[in-house]
């Protein structure tokens, strides 16, 4: 039987180790484990690599401990703005979206672009409208925001407010 395997990441960063609490670290490990399981079981049953990577990333997008989907960072305006891509190594087909809001799983939208759109890459409102046309699951703004991301955004805004103003 040919070999099968799955590798995933949940982000690389340089940071003070003390900034990750034991509780946070445990939640991260649990999320990584769950995502690995979601993709691996597809491969184990003989499913496609494409289905496996989508399921893996969906799991991470649905987990607020990772910076994608629910738990995404907020931009300067305090809005979620998500990007995603997917590529099939067998055919070199690819799909990508950027600056997407409301779409629960941006990587599924990227796959829908790959499979059902004549183009490779859609952005912003066009990508959102394409998601609506194809019946993808949408969520309200508050679904994507978490206490952590809201707090991080407030700190950035407060820092900007400290800059002396002149009229």
């Amino acid at each position, binding site marked *: 039987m040919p070999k099968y395997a799955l590798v995933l*990441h949940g982000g*690389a960063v340089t940071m003070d180790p003390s900034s990750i609490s034991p509780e946070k670290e445990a939640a991260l490990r649990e999320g990584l484990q769950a995502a690995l399981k979601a993709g*691996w079981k597809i491969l184990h049953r003989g499913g496609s690599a494409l289905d496996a990577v989508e399921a893996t990333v969906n799991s991470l997008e649905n987990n607020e401990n990772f*910076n994608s989907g629910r738990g995404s960072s907020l*931009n300067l305006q305090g809005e979620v703005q*998500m990007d*995603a*891509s997917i590529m*099939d190594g067998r055919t070199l087909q690819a799909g990508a979206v950027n600056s997407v809001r409301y779409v629960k799983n941006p990587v599924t939208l*990227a796959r829908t672009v790959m499979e059902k759109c004549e183009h490779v890459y859609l952005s912003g409102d066009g990508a959102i409208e394409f998601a609506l046309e194809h019946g993808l699951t949408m969520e309200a703004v508050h679904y994507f925001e978490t206490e952590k991301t809201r707090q991080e955004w407030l700190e950035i805004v407060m820092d900007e407010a400290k800059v002396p103003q002149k009229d």
Partner: protein
Amino acid sequence: TVGAVALDQDGNLAVATSTGGIEGQRKGRVGDSPVIGGGSYAANEACAVSCTGDGEVLLRGALAHEVYALVKYKGLSVQEACKEAVQLRAEDLKGDKGFIAIDTDGNIAIESNTNVMRCAYRIEDEEPFVAVWREE
């Protein structure tokens, strides 16, 4: 950012990458994740790669495609290719870089220049590996 690469039982590769961007980013800013060749690339003839880290750095280096090219044209293993991509023009491409990759023989690579590299992998029925820190 999150991502995954996989090899299935038919010998096919795939990659997916998804991100919420960076805190306080300018509206409309696009990083590497959605850019084919920047943050993601997959081709059965070489490997599948997903990137994470400083998006602008990964974009300027076209680093997902760089890993692919190092495997395809230089004949490096995915581990060697990812190590070389992390070091590629480090003086010009300064910043956090992280890569996961897999080839059609099931060889895998996880490389970064950061102390945190949240990752996991499982090969066939072997025990799963999960890590938060690069040195695990």
